[in-house]
């Protein structure tokens, strides 16, 4: 198998998360008292990191 799908998914979600964190902190726009951009950005970044972690772990165990 040529390509590990978890890698592009992980990268995209990590980048999305970072964009939302930076944008949310720079332009706070609270919804129901929450900075939803920054909070959801953290969730996306964590998910992206998790996918990248899975991908790297399987690459290193194959070696």
């Amino acid at each position, binding site marked *: 198998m040529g390509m590990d799908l978890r890698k592009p998914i992980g990268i995209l979600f990590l980048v999305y998360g970072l964009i939302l964190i930076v944008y949310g902190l720079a*332009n706070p726009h609270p919804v129901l008292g929450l900075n*939803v951009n920054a909070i959801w950005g953290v969730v996306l970044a964590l998910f992206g990191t998790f996918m990248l972690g899975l991908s790297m772990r399987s690459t290193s165990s194959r070696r």
Partner: protein
Amino acid sequence: MRAVHVELIDILIIALYGVVVLGIGFALRGRMQNSGEFLLAGRHIPAWTAGLAFLSANLGAQEMIGMAASGAKYGILTSHFYWVGAIPAMVFVGVFMMPFYYGSRARSVPEYLKLRFDEKTRAFNALTFAVMTVFSSGISMYAMGALLSLLLGWNIHACIIVSAVVVLAYIALGGLTSAIYNEVLQFFLIVFGFAPVVYLGLREIGGWEGLKARVPETFVHSWTGMARPDTNPLGVEWFGLLMGLGFVLSFGYWCTDFLVVQRAMAADSMNAARRTPLIAAVPKMLFPFLVIVPGIIALGLTLHPAGGAAPLLPQAPSGGYDYNMALPMMMSRYYPAGLLGLGLTALLASFMSGMAGNVTAFNTVWTYDLYQSYLVRGASDSHYLYVGRLTTVVGTLISVATAYAAMRFNNIMDMLQLVFSFVNAPLFATFLLGMFWRRTTGHGAFSGLVSGTLAAAGHYELTGVAGGGSLLGKIAVLHVYPSDMAQNFWGAIWAWTVCFVVTILVSLASSPKPQEDLKGLVFGLTPKPSDAALAWYQRPAILGILVLLGTAALNLVFW
């Protein structure tokens, strides 16, 4: 009307998605060396990837928008389309039918019919399926373009053309593998893009208890009103629901529609193919919380607006509320610039996954079942690879043309979808008999399918709906149903029964295929896949039981 304002940051988020989607297509382009790679993903997709793609291919934008709309219109009763109308069939196809689909090495569902029955049964299924897929992808393309232009003020032509070109590019480059990989990405985008709506909606409205206080009692119970058609908003009773939706329509779609079955057939082993629909069933079981609950919240905020705000749902021109705006209005209520980009990306992703599902299924059926079988036989494989790529272009062009036709002639499209529903209704009877009764013959299957389709059309022609109009002229109205849904479910029950009986009678009157020709195709003549040596979470039967128990528990919680 422009309900939503898009800022630069949102465009950036949408554009990044476009880059990754096309990037996946480019990365896979070198692997497309033969038609099997392009049209069947070389049968090397792991179970979890195939499972999420199986679910995602069904999650078109119309599904997302439509299920939220139904949530606002019918409440939690919409969950019947998941817990009754999907999960049992998904378990059945994985545990019982996949051994024959995957084990036969057929490249498509119509090809299975050819192996099991004969050429005419395959031709009937392949032709109707091919026409249906390009048309429905065109209709959903139009629906998406119309929604985006309404919401964002974007040009509808640009929406249709740009999204068609993106889907065309990533499939023409990377074939079915590219479609499947992108469907997995799209699945995660859909989940992460819509989840904040649910959380923020429930937070504003005071949780499930607060929601219950704002909507009618029948909207928060899935079974309490199902004894009679007049005590629930669907207008259908439990028997029509269980047999029509839960058995005939649901099994007819999930167990025989090549659009979804193709994902499982691309799996890398028999065990992975069997687990594909079961893995898909787990998120499917939970999807009502993601798509239906926002619709119910939208209704709550319309009937009892929070803090002196205007009702959330706009009025429809024909009276009543414009339910299709439920999900978009919820997004525009809670999503600031930034998160909004993610939400719009999720909408686009669901649209593309649905369209890519149609295009890849059309490619395979056209290339193998129609072109290779009836037009040009025995050419080299590279010829069929070329035809597959060309079919992607032609299929997309026909879809775009259909989208424009839908824009001009809305009624014709509704009529076509009605005719398609006649063809689909009897299908599961043919597959059930074909797979589990070795005496079933090709003549039996073909005459059953044709008479079942005619029975569905006849049922429609002879019955009416209380207070409703009709797309086609009626011959006579012998029975009046309380709702469209009741008519639809009961029509399916009639079509299935006619197909079942006719197939048996004609099979008994004609001579069956010799048993050695049926090895691998029929129950009893196919070695059972042994999974005794596997861990519990790899055994389809155990996974299936767990999924069914979970679904039963959800039904009880929302009874």
